[in-house]
């Protein structure tokens, strides 16, 4: 039920008083209500749940998380080297 997927905003329009985005999820596009993240721009990613964008994906933070995880491996390699010498 909380299943939510990130999608890329391709186009932003207005419909029936709502800010609506055409959002792409790995090849499929859907109309999504953007009322809750009104400052999103075309080209940015939004987390979408039951037809509503509920959060904007922060790409800088995404990269940071992955970098930290990669560094974890380096630290481990270093400490292994350290202990075996």
């Amino acid at each position, binding site marked *: *039920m*909380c*299943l*939510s997927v*990130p999608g890329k905003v391709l186009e932003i329009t207005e419909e029936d*008083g*709502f800010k609506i985005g055409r959002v792409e999820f790995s090849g499929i596009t*859907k109309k999504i*209500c953007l*009322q*809750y*993240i*009104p400052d999103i721009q075309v080209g940015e990613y939004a*987390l979408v*749940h*039951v*037809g*509503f964008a*509920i*959060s904007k*994906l*922060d*790409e800088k*933070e*995404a990269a*940071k*998380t*992955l970098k930290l*995880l*990669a560094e*974890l*491996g380096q630290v*481990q390699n270093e400490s292994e080297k350290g202990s075996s010498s």
Partner: protein
Amino acid sequence: MDEYRDGKLARNIVNEISRILTRNWVIMEVCGGQTHAIVKYGLDQLFPKQVELVHGPGCPVCVTPLALIDKALAIASRHDVIFCSFGDMMRVPGSVDDLLQIKAQGGDIRIVYSPLDALKIASENPDKKVVFFAVGFETTVPANAMAVWKAKEDSVRNFSMLVSHVLVPPAMTAILNSPENRVQGFLAAGHVCSVMGYWEYEPISADYRVPIVVSGFEPLDILEGILMVVRQLEQGKAEVENQYTRIVTRQGNTLAQEKILDVFDVCDRKWRGIGEIPRSGLRLKDEFKSFDAAKIFETKQIQTQESPLCISGEILQGLKKPDDCPAFGGQCTPENPLGTTMVSSEGTCAAFYQYGRHEFHGRTESR
């Protein structure tokens, strides 16, 4: 998204958990979506068995009270009603039948992707009463709040909602208050927090001295979340941390929170299999009572009947696992479910069954 499934990075995290671990810890992932990912990718079997994962109550479908399911079924059977629901409610067993059976008997039941679709169906069918089954945690509430708000704005008179919204923090508190509780740290549900932020968890973490780490849903998110909890436990800390920084901020989505408060009031609520939890649910405010299907449709007090074999209540509280249920994989399967945790895609029994854990039935105890 694939980068969050990288095997090498996953090994790094598992190695780090093993490296810092000095004793046994019990960690609960609250969200059923995370349970599903954990069982699917076998994450619980990757790290040392000193870390035990128990699966939490985060399956809204599972905790919707049987009496409310029966009420939904009674409304859905009416000839003047079009009943709209998300797909995962279709097979949830009521006392006698489920939505799918009502549909087979001629009920007009439609699966919708969004509550706005239900609202559209209402405008297209002015001679019918369109009822939307609003089930879900905080993640789903903003969408439903917007749909009711819009219905009122546009004076759509034939639209209503049967509301079964539940809130996560009170459920975590209830688990911690239980005398049988074993949980020492939590992975908080990232998508709930994308709406609500995580400030609500700070007093829980401080009062009960439990680490709470907001986590995402990809394998690496979950593994990193567990590492962060283990780190805190090993260092004797109890804080709220955020693993899911790409989606979640401390304050959450304030526009969504405002809309929730415009439309709903907090209320006490019964959780199926668990019982009543104070201030753990939402109900429509009085201004929206003409959109409240529970008030519009008087249904007779229905005699409810749970399966006597099913232990899903204990499973939802993390006290037992599906393997502990004698019916698991035998009398109870997704085709013939005895309890809700076997039906919903987020239910623990369904996750265990789908990924073949029933084949190990009776042998997993030693893990």
